[in-house]
């Protein structure tokens, strides 16, 4: 009654002498058991060794295949993204043929081009279609079109005449003279103070001058009427 033991250690890939194996076993078994040594036939052990080897080979092959698959998938994804960033071929052609007119592209042509590009992109993308639509809509301000790299195409006439430097300079002066910390007041207050301190004392400007602050006065009238209405309704 020999127990059949399956050897699963990796070192079994070596072609062991069955005798040696049995010896080893015996040593192990002897320590725990007093039974007679087991008999494992050569064929069996050979078969098991071969099997384990095959398994190992298979697993390594599978792993390699898996890695390959992953790499391939990644590459595909990159290709897809790259294709997405480029404009479709026909627009690139157009731009190539008219490089000098980049600055003055007429508005409708730009729009139609954009529309065509937009449609083709729409076809190609399934997943994040809405997200991408939003992106293009936001990016399309006036006639600014993004090309590959850091270039953008826009009409010179659409730019306002005050460029950014001039605007910064004007903002600087406005902030220094009228910005926070400049302690300014209103014309109303200055004139009202003049009225109150002058030789003929009179009321503040908005009461003396009928035309002053007509919107505020109209609003105040309206609120007053509303309040009167409110008071009447619950009492009536």
């Amino acid at each position, binding site marked *: 009654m020999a127990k059949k033991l399956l050897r699963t250690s990796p070192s079994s890939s070596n072609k062991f002498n069955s005798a040696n194996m049995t010896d080893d076993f015996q040593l192990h078994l002897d320590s725990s058991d007093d039974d007679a040594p087991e008999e494992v036939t050569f064929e069996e052990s050979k078969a098991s060794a071969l099997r384990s080897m095959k398994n190992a080979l298979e697993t390594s092959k599978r792993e390699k295949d898996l890695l390959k698959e992953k790499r391939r998938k990644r590459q595909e994804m990159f290709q897809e993204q790259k294709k997405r960033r480029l404009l479709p071929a026909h627009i690139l052609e157009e731009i190539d043929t008219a490089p000098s007119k980049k600055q003055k592209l007429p508005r409708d042509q730009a729009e139609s081009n954009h529309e065509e590009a937009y449609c083709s992109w729409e076809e190609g993308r399934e997943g994040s279609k809405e997200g991408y639509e939003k992106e293009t809509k936001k990016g399309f301000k006036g006639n600014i079109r993004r090309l590959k790299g850091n270039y953008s195409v826009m009409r010179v006439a659409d730019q306002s*005449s*005050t460029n950014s*430097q*001039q605007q*910064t*300079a*004007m903002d*600087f002066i406005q902030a*220094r*003279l*009228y910005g926070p*910390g*400049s*302690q*300014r*007041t*209103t*014309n*109303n*207050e*200055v*004139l009202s*103070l003049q009225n*109150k*301190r002058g030789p003929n004392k009179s009321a503040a400007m908005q009461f003396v*001058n009928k035309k*002053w602050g007509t919107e505020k006065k109209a609003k105040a009238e309206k609120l007053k009427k509303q309040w009167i209405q409110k008071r009447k309704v619950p009492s009536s």
Partner: protein
Amino acid sequence: MGEFKVHRVRFFDYMPTAIRAMAFNAHTERLALGRMDGSVEIFNFADRYFQEKVIPGKDSRSIEALCWVGGRLFSAGLNGEITEYDLENLRPKYSLEAYGGPIWTITSNSQGAHLAIGCEDGTVKLFEVLEESIQFERNLDRQKGRIISLSWHPSGTQIAAGMMDMIRVFDVPTGRAVQRLLVDRGFGGSKSRETVVWSVVFLSDYTIISGDSAGKVQVWDGHTGTLVKTHLVTKWDVLALSVSKDESSVVVGTSEGTVIQFQFIAPTLQQQQDKEWVRTRTFKNHTHDVRALAEIETAIVSGGMDTQLVVRPLLEKFDERSHASALRKIQFPHRNLVFCAKKAGLLLFQFPGQLELWRLGESDGHGKPGDSLPLKRKPEKLLHLKRKGEDHICCSALSSCGGWLAYSTMSSVRLYRLQTDNNDISISKVPKLPKILRSAHQLCFSSDSSKLFAASSQSSVLVIALSQSECKYVHTLKPKSGSRQPIHLMTNSVDGKWLATANSDCEIHVYNVQKLKLHCIVPVYGSCPSAMGIHPTTNNLTMVHADQQIFEYSIVEKQYTDWSRKLQKQGLHNLWLDRDTPVTHVTFNPKNPEQILLHDMHMFCIIDQSLPLPDQKTQFYNQMTLRSLSEQERPSHLHAFKICKTFQDLLSVSLLDDQSLVMVERPLLAITCQLPAPVRQKKFAT
């Protein structure tokens, strides 16, 4: 005299622009004023501060500083360009891009050979002044902050530049920065903000005086780079500085609206003390920030955000009190902005950006003098015509029948045909104007609306014939004197025969329109004419000059009239001559050929030629007295000048065909309401 129904018009929302920069040319005694909307005005200080020329602004132009080089005027602005102006054709000659970003200041050296500009990118650029243009020479050492103000040393070897938190002194031949003067920041809350040195002045003894945003005026020693004295003059910014020609006095303008004078005198009278800069006078003539300042020989000229030009003569330079030593405030322009169609009862208001056409209201009532009549129909705005393009409107005209409207900018002239059928108005542009009609300094329609007169370059007048809906160029009327100055006044006679023009050289030419040639030249008087009018029946040309002299010239006889000679012999009353605003409009009463109607900003006057002229001892403003006298006593006290001061801040007075007067007033209070915010000043007991 009779009663007049008066249309009191206050719906003209005229809003002047704030003054940004000024420069005084001592040789020609002209002051150039730059406003925030880009327009430049030239005042003749020798001729009662008359506004001689106006160069209209442009949307893209901005003026931060002005400077004179000889007789040439240069300006620089935040659009990064230096512009030279052609003062004979009232337009910019050319604009040079400085490629330094926005330009904050421009100044010329005392020899007049170089211009220095201070740019946003921290460079001081030097330009060489050539015959017909300027040329970039070189940059001085580039600095880290923006250059806000510049001042040349009188020798031309050094420049002081006011920047943020410091003043740098450059050596011009090498371009290196030799000194750095550090300006303290303000105390308290403003310690976190950088101090901006708004203006700086370099004196010939190497003293530098600076005004900064912390409200200090500091005196520095330019040799050693040390601070000599600090004067804290205000809690707000010190925006402008100006030094007098002899360097004994410096005036300083602040955000509060005060102008403070510092003089280089010995502080006490004893023992030959050293002279130093002592604060002497304070003038409070402005309600808003003072941004432009100039100290001329006898006066201090200041202008700022409250749009008024104030000339404050220094009383120690005058021996006696006269009109020359009185405070002058120039608030309204010295030319017409309101045009009236007498037959149709329409008013045209000229704004820099648009034209407005209004129909006057109607009233049926009758009343005593001084009553307000109820309105049957309110005045209504018929047309709001916006200008095309960037240039501001230079001049405009409305024909007396109300059928034609024209306006001109620096680059184009536009002519429109108006049709009013009861309450509808239709306007159609006249296409294809003659090519020669490029821009006009003044426009005027003939009284039968068959011709348009356009004042063009070199004092010439283009005559354009108008028919149903088109126009044709007829002729150019040229003056014989060959003057190159622009025309600023033009008037024509009611019968369509005569046209009179006046230019900035004080020449008045009268042309015969039917024969299309020069008829005569009025003898030149030293002062510029401020208003002219041709009488409907006698064809006498009445001229009022900037120094308040009145002349009457008979065009037919080519000589002054008897009345005019009598007036000159007697002399005008002192109170008339002491008035400080010029007469801007002369008109006549068809029903009473003896009357001449004139107005200036503060009064309206009817001169009755049949009445005796007042002498120096007569009471000049006698209307109130006459009313209190009885019928028998009145005739002995009457004199020719009847002045009415009921209507104030007048922009225009005209007489319609139905004997009603139109007074267009613009109350100064209404202008003050729309100004930008003034500083908050804490006053006692408020």
